[in-house]
């Protein structure tokens, strides 16, 4: 029986255990009239039986599926001739691959040494043994546990409490997936980064001024210098983010002020969602717009004034990114401006200040921490933004502050290094993970500061 078949069987067993447990509970209680003698409703006894039967069998199934390949391969390696066992890791991997292929095809068309064919037969044999053993084990465990829980049912068993405890543990596991995800991110980038820093020194990476990740595959190859200095990438990222912020912060902030302080409710209900549409547009659409509309337009306008604007200028990417971030800033600022107590406004207006003076001298200073927090979140968004820059910014790692030139960013390089076929373990591929690590740390720091600032600000007025 194959694995999915066993899964179905385990689920059917669970259902059976449920009905048996429920029926048993009613019988134990002495028919339908005796239910009030039970500790819990019959359904809980059924659920408890199902859980008793299902959880261990499913666990065994999962562990078996995860580990059986590994164990079988170890057995095969043990049985290989000693000459093959002495092979290096990659050669052994190749050999095992051949074995697996022959075992899968089951054909003699592939010419191979007898010991490989023997190993392939052995592999097939072990696999079927493992499958059979798994089926037997699952069936026995499930039936045994169903019987055990059936025998356990009595009027004193606190089925409800037990079921609720399982429910709570399942919920806790779901909640901790966020923690596992963070751990997964950290480990996945850290391990690869450590490998990278073994071949490229950390300080060369962080302070190096030259980025050209093309490595020589052969020693005599020309041009494969392989310089991994990340400064131009971070400079490019900062340049584009700054341009985006120059657009987004004033526009977003003023829009938020107008909407929360001046606009009538009617205008607000129309304009606010309309602006938020900008945030819902996928970034790939912005990228297309930046690359095919904004960039050519800027180049043509620039050449009219005698400026040479690169067709992949930082300006185009930054402008479009700024537009994307406007609703982000405006909705965050809107929230914090609305959180400023009305009494502050009334006090200022009562002293004779005009509306704009109240806003400038009372509301903004009061809301400043929240606004700054929002802007920090927006900066982290801009730094991590990928598609706009992949499509509209260039690949050349120029160290420049001229927005009309082409720059590249951290995210662009991660995408270029990892898209398509690549060999694992070459510094070129691993450098993408190092860049990812830096990106993760920077955005994490920005987010943490921003969330802290905003939280503090909220507490102040609550």
């Amino acid at each position, binding site marked *: 029986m194959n694995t999915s078949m066993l899964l179905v069987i385990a689920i059917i067993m669970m259902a059976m255990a449920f009905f048996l447990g429920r029926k048993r509970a009613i019988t134990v209680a002495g028919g339908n009239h005796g239910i009030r003698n039970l500790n819990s409703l019959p359904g809980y006894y059924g659920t408890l039986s199902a859980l008793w039967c299902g959880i261990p069998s499913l666990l065994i199934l999962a562990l078996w599926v995860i580990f059986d390949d590994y164990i079988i391969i170890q057995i095969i390696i043990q049985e290989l001739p000693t000459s093959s066992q002495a092979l290096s890791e990659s050669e052994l991997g190749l050999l095992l691959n051949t074995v697996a292929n022959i075992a899968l095809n089951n054909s003699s068309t592939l010419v191979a040494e007898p010991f490989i064919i023997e190993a392939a037969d052995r592999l097939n044999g072990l696999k079927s043994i493992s499958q059979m053993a798994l089926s037997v084990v699952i069936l026995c465990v499930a039936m045994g546990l169903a019987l055990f829980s059936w025998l356990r049912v009595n009027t004193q068993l606190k089925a409800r409490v037990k079921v609720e405890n399982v429910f709570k543990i399942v919920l806790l596991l*779901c*909640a*901790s997936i966020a923690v596992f995800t963070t751990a997964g991110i950290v480990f*996945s980038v850290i391990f690869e980064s450590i490998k990278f820093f073994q071949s490229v020194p950390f300080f060369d990476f962080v302070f190096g001024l030259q980025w050209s990740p093309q490595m020589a595959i052969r020693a005599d190859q020309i041009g494969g210098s392989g310089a991994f200095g990340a400064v131009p990438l971070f400079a490019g990222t900062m340049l584009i983010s700054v341009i985006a912020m120059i657009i987004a912060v004033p526009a977003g902030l003023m829009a938020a002020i107008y909407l929360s302080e001046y606009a009538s409710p009617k205008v607000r209900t129309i304009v606010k969602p309309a602006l938020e549409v900008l945030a819902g547009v996928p970034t790939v659409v912005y990228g297309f717009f930046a690359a095919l509309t904004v960039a050519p337009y800027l180049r043509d306008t620039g050449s009219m004034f005698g400026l040479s604007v690169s067709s992949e200028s930082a300006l185009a990417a930054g402008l479009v990114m700024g537009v994307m971030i406007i609703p982000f800033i405006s909705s965050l600022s809107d929230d914090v401006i609305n959180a400023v107590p009305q009494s502050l406004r009334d006090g200022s207006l009562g002293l004779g200040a005009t509306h704009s003076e109240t806003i400038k001298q009372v509301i903004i200073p009061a809301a400043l921490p929240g606004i700054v927090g929002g802007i920090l979140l927006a900066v982290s968004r801009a730094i991590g933004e990928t598609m706009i820059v*992949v499509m509209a910014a260039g690949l050349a790692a120029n160290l420049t502050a001229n927005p009309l030139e082409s720059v590249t960013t951290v995210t662009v390089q991660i995408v270029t290094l990892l898209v398509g076929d690549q060999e694992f373990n070459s510094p070129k591929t691993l450098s993408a993970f190092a860049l990812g690590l830096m990106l993760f740390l920077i955005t994490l720091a920005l987010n943490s500061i921003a969330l802290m600032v905003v939280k503090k600000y909220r507490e102040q007025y609550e």
Partner: protein
Amino acid sequence: MTNLSSQPAANAQTPSTMDLVNKNLAKRYRAEKRFKAYGIAAILFGLACLVILFTDIVSKGHSAFLQTYVYLEVTYDADTLEIDDINNPQQIAIADYSALVKASLRQQFTDAKSRKERRNLYGLVSNGASFTLRESLEDNPALLNQTVGVWLLADDDVDTYYKSRGDDKADAFVGRLVPKQVAWIETWITNQQIKKRFNTTFFTSGDSREPEQAGILGAMAGSLFTLLVTIILSFPIGVAAAVYLEEYAPKNKLTDFIEVNINNLAAVPSIIFGLLGLAIFIGYFEMHRSLPLVGGLVLSLMTLPTIIISSRAAIKSVPPSIRDAALGLGASKMQVILHHVLPLSMPGMLTGAIIGFAQALGETAPLLMIGMVAFIVDIPGGISDPSTVLPVQIFLWSDSPERAFIERTSAAIMVLLAFLITMNTFAILLRNRLERRW
């Protein structure tokens, strides 16, 4: 401070506060008006960007919904096709139908003499035309040795030329076409042998290197499967996590840690999730690249924080009195949650979740990392078939040099936006319909 009322106005030596106020008043009012105008300008700027973005996409993409076809008299010549037994499907399947198209073109334009000119001539009709001919012969074998007029798919250069032409020949975008090719197309136009039809290919076929044969069905199917995996994984887990954090979690370090993690994950750049998928799912678990399964896993990890946060807000909005009443009647904690809290907060949760799924549907960067950028012609049939998704398809096409891909990219964007707008509208309607105010 001077006393306003007791200050005699006649005292010209020291101007009263009222005078000072009045003197500045006009200036202050002007500043007020300016400030208000800045606000309006900011909003107009945002809205203008929105309008420009949409009109740009629509103006570039609307023409892709039509496709140029050319009318040719084609003879299903048995000798050219090398079919001697019409009842043999094998022969019909492998025959060279492009030879028929070429023969027909040669017949119409006898001025194509040299090899190069003939190649140019053949280039006017898409190589997808031979599939059309094969299908019609398969459907109706009696066509063999008959001459019939058929509308065949034109090449993308012809398509671009004809669409950009309008009424005046001078407006047309010539591109890679040589003058002779333009002359041939003009002959077709005067003969009314060329027309635009609704582009069904765009919605019914997978990706192709030839713009005129490229469609988005493969990408849409990929998006559907990816989204399905995302929904199945992230919605139950997200709701469960939210229930734990709102209803069960004790105030302790662990809960705080989980909360901080969720908030931070919500702001982690999406590309980092792609790195996670590449290192863990593909590198460690050795799953294959380009699978909707892997894409769905990555996207569910990415949408999970959004769903948890919105579900928590929905659970929070259920008033405690309902819980107290249920507990008072003897319900257990789990019964309170399953029978009362979840049904009451479901609309809010669904609204947040749909918005999260809309984000996932438009996401590109993490899927690039796990190899969903491969050129895949086949339409995926399940979560374990290699595929691409709609946003990635847009990214791939936008990189293509052919001009005809620009309009197809824009059209694909329009389809994607239509899906997103539908999802978001549905979410808003759901909220307005079902959400209860307490």
